[in-house]
């Protein structure tokens, strides 16, 4: 049902810009529906080209679709940063379920090494203070966690060491040499409290997933993996939220998504957590309910998320050691584990998996729960 509509005047409206006009149209549509701002819990946008969103790029699906010679019934590209891969697989499941398409191809790809672009610049006015890049942002979160809960560098180190130990059992992983705590602690500081070994790899690569109907999947070659639940939550108010550097939006969509799948954190055999920085793994262990708020540091101590530990986290090594796969490699590792095709790193009898994606300025989060 469409419950409300609203728009501004159209024509020459300077000095007002799209930003002012969007606020007016949004308020008008919500008022037309008889609702209040606080009732809104979803946001979809269609930016016009003068907003700069298309500068220098063709929409991703348009370029890739043309190169693959496709004339599909459904298309889209998600601009959710590191949550994008998990979100597109979730969106594919919705489209297939709604009958909009039958075989939906989900593709992540990037080549930051072969075709580099500048990642250094922060957004807007923060850049003038030297607030550049994802590492600075996550350093603020790490400092906050250390201050509030007594989390130590060694706790972050446990995450980096576990990732390498997992990658040692992953033939295609980039960093397969095990790491010691002494090496981690001697790692060069980038933006303190984060070291180089707290940061994920920068990789060229692509990864793709095919989503189809249950009926179609039954007759295909590979053992199908079921999407048991999906969810998203986002924190767009950013610094205005007192929780911004302490909790991720995962704290909201994690429990909801698990409930949709009829599972709790203790029911998951394999957990694929987006790991652009070690601190994000710690935060998600709390947000998804694997441990209490503030306890993720001691939780990972002693190798709990390393191979043979009691919680199977990122068994392929993740962004920290397998390679930067935008989140799609996390989805693929979950599928491999559920198919029983993970070789030396196979978690015995893996029947359920969770996959997370986290992106932009710690603003976006998406979750999938998969089962066989």
């Amino acid at each position, binding site marked *: 049902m469409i419950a409300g509509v609203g728009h501004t005047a159209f024509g020459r409206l300077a000095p007002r810009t799209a930003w002012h006009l969007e606020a007016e149209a949004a308020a008008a549509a919500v008022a037309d529906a008889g609702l209040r701002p606080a009732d809104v819990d979803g946001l979809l946008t269609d930016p016009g080209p003068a907003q700069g969103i298309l500068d220098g790029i063709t929409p991703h699906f348009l370029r890739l679709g043309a190169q693959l010679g496709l004339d599909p019934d459904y298309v889209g590209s998600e601009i959710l940063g590191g949550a994008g891969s998990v979100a597109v697989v979730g969106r594919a499941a919705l489209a297939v379920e709604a009958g909009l398409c039958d075989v939906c191809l989900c593709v992540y790809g990037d080549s930051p090494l072969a075709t580099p672009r500048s990642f250094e610049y922060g957004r807007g006015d923060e850049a003038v203070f030297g607030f550049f890049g994802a590492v600075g942002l996550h350093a603020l979160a790490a400092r906050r966690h250390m201050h509030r809960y007594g989390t130590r560098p060694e706790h972050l180190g446990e995450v980096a060491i576990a990732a390498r130990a997992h990658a040692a059992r992953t033939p295609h992983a980039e960093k397969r040499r095990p790491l010691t705590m002494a090496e981690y602690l001697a790692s060069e500081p980038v*933006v303190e409290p984060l070291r180089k070994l707290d940061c994920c790899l920068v990789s060229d690569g692509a990864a793709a997933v095919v989503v189809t109907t249950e009926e179609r999947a039954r007759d295909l070659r590979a053992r199908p993996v079921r999407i048991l639940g999906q969810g998203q939550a986002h924190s767009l108010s950013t610094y205005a939220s007192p929780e911004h550097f302490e909790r991720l939006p995962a704290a909201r969509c994690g429990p909801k998504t698990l409930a949709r799948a009829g599972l709790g954190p203790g029911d998951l055999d394999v957990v694929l957590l987006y790991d652009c920085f070690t601190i994000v793994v710690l935060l998600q262990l709390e947000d998804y309910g694997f441990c209490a708020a503030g306890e993720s540091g001691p939780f990972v101590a002693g190798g709990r998320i390393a191979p043979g530990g009691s919680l199977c986290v990122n068994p392929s090594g993740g962004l920290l050691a397998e390679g930067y796969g935008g989140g799609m490699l996390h989805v693929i590792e979950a599928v491999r584990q559920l198919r029983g095709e993970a070789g030396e790193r196979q978690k015995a009898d893996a029947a359920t998996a969770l996959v997370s994606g986290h992106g932009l300025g710690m603003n976006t989060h998406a979750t999938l729960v998969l089962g066989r």
Partner: protein
Amino acid sequence: MSATGPALPPPDALTAPFWEECRRGVLAIAACADCGHRFLPPGPCCPRCWSRRLAVQEACGRGRVETFAVYRRTYHPALPAPYVVALIALDEGPRLISNVVGCAAAEVAVGMPVAVRFEKAGDRVLPRFAPAGDQGGAS
């Protein structure tokens, strides 16, 4: 190292008045004329009630360090490392990203009271923050 490099992003239409106030030595925060909510950065409407009736208030310039990070790598020639980026909670409530200056990076701490100090940087005057001692800070 020369202090040139790629241009940093210029102020946009919504934040230009904030930077003009900085030139006058005033830290300006946005305030909603309908619900009274005070916020940064300035926007096209109140982020709490969506009213477009907005006013500007002068902040007292005092606050506390909520969290901070020490850049050990230089990402822009105009901003040589090391330097401290911090999230500052102003006494009036809004939080903003800025720098902590006037002390060594090793002396910065979460919870530290700070006061604004305007510094010229290129063609802007930046509201940076320096240690303020405990008198008159946020309680």
